[in-house]
């Protein structure tokens, strides 16, 4: 597979994962007043997905909730996002994005490769497959509960230390 095609595939998979994660995360009740309240999926900063993300989420649901995709160069604490993917940008670095929504019931997702800042879920490529790491500790501070099913699929999990 050529690099471009491979990259397309990678982000197609990642795009589907973005909303699929939603089935394995529990938000606080206040996040969704009703069953039909849409799940807001934000892409903050550079958008590597493009149409792929819209195509992937089109008609999909997380549980009963429809999915709304929002793009913005930066976020504030009151982001209104339930899921947030960021690569950072000149406007706001990944670290600042994460700082902005710290403690909020937002599922932060990053694709940091090196020692940089990571969200609750961080994509990683293993054996040519899209994998992910999960920081359960941060999820807890974000008032989020991650299903063990998802945790078991993660290649690395950062847990709460007793």
């Amino acid at each position, binding site marked *: 597979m050529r690099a471009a095609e491979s990259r397309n595939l990678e982000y197609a998979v990642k795009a589907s994962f973005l909303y699929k994660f939603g089935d394995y995360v529990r938000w606080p009740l206040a996040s969704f007043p009703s069953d039909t309240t849409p799940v807001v999926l934000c892409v903050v900063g550079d958008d590597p997905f493009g149409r792929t993300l819209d195509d992937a989420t089109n008609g999909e649901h997380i549980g009963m909730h429809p999915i709304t995709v929002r793009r913005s160069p930066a976020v504030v604490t009151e982001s209104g996002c339930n899921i947030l993917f960021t690569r950072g940008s000149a406007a706001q670095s990944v670290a600042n994005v994460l700082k902005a929504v710290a403690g909020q019931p937002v599922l932060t997702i990053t694709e940091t490769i090196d020692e940089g800042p990571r969200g609750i879920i961080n994509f990683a490529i293993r054996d040519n497959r*899209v994998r992910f790491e999960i920081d359960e500790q941060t999820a807890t501070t974000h008032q989020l509960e991650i299903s063990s099913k*998802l945790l078991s699929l993660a290649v690395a999990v950062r847990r709460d230390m007793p």
Partner: protein
Amino acid sequence: MTDAPFRKSRYRTWAETLSERSRSALIAGVMAALMLVTAGLILALYDSQTYKAQKLREITVQVQILAASVSAPLVFDDPSATREYLNALQVNPEVDAAAVYDKAGVLVATLARDAKRATPEKAPDQQSVFADGFLTVVLPIMQDTRSLGTVYIRAVTEPLFRRLARYGGIFLLVTMASLVAAVLMAAHSALSRANTQLEARAAQLAESNRLLLVQIKEREKAEDALRQAQKMEAVGQLTGGIAHDFNNMLAVIVGNLSLLLRRAAQGETNLTRYAEGALEGASRGARLTQQLLAFSRQQPLAPVPLDPNHLVSSMSELLRRALGEHIRFETVIAGGIWTIYADKTQLETAVLNLAVNARDAMLEGGTLTLETTNARLTEADLEGAQGTSSGDYILISVTDNGSGMTPAVLAKAFDPFFTTKPVGQGTGLGLSQVYGFVKQSRGHIKIQSEVGRGTTVKLYLPRYAGAAKAERPERSVHNLPMGNAKEVLLVVEDDETVRRVAVDSLRDLGYTIYHASGALSALSVLEAHPEIVLLFTDIVMPDGNGRKLADDALTMRPNLKVLFTTGYARDAIIHNGVLDEGVELLPKPYSIEQVAQKIREILGPAKP
């Protein structure tokens, strides 16, 4: 086919040997077992249906669990995780093959026990099917309303045979249990049968015991008869000598009385000594007859305390008569002799038998010594004789200096009917009577004999702790209990002479006497004279039995007293050797003292 009937009869015999109850118990047990087996089969068949449903449920659950497990791996496209969950099914031995397919129906992971029975390449459509001993369940993996993929599991179903085998074990146990119950019942009925048999046997034994007791009684009766025969034998020995002696006594009486008459005719008044001489002879004769009668009387054994010396001296007369004049008779009596406890008659008979044997051993004459002395016997002396123990004994020994006995004769001396005397001269019962008596009295007997020198027979009788019964002293003439004229008696006696003497004697005593010669006349006299208080009658009379007379008289006069007299030892009046209660008997011959005493006794103290 000649075997078949034989075999069948064997089984039939076996079946017949079982009792009715145990057979029916066995049949009941077998029936129960059969019923249980049938019920089991029905259950198994029913179970077969429920089994299928249950199996389906089980496998479906497994599929659902697997589906739930692999849903996330499928969503996030993690085939290794999918495979991991699939492999977990390996531990279930029922799972023959399993597979997971993605939502396109493409195989993601597979598991198969046997490569020949691999999973389908594409997800099949069927939901579930039982085929060829396998149950196949296929279910979609749903998330909300979306299908993520398909799960396939093929499981082994337990063949009916295996299941029956499983149940079969249980049925076997139940059958065994019911058979055991049947056997127990059979055993129980066999036991109760044996019990009944035992009871019957016990009843038989009780019956045998009873018969044995009866036989023992009969034997005792026979022994009594033997004793009597022995007594008669002894008596028989005497008759010869006795008859001779009686003649002598009669001669004394007749002589004295004729002298008396002569002297009286001559005018002599002092005739006392002739009368006394006659009386003396008569009383000696009377004593002898008494002893004879005592012997021949059938009496039951009545041991009493006896003084051996007294016995010996009272027997002296008799023995002297038995021995005859050509044999010298000596007695050696020890002072302070102890008392023995024995039947008087038996002891007298024993001594008599020994004396007679001694006499027959001394046909040319000789000396017989009768000795009494106290003795102490040790275990050694007793020589292990049964029924004896060491201690104090009284020895009564009879010694003669006659022909003696050889050791061979000595060995058989005590055998009944063994005799060395020629036919007609002895029955051989003598020594056996002595032996029997000694053994009965728990004593010991020993014979010492030497041919040509003589024989000593020693009787050891155990010492009795009490005292011998004192005998009543005879009253003298001057102490006669008299009667008075107010006491009226009736004397009944068929013999005129005897009657004359009786009437005279009684009148002499003071009584008023009426007399009759027979029963009939006696009754009319009784009727005519209500003042009669006592009836004195002979028993055996030609015209009427004295006993019957007494009964008739008593009917007429219930308060009448009765005194019988008789010359016979045995009579209708005496039963089993014991006088009827209330019956008074004065045996003949009696002296005036005896009749006076007896009548006084019956009438009670004289009223003034």
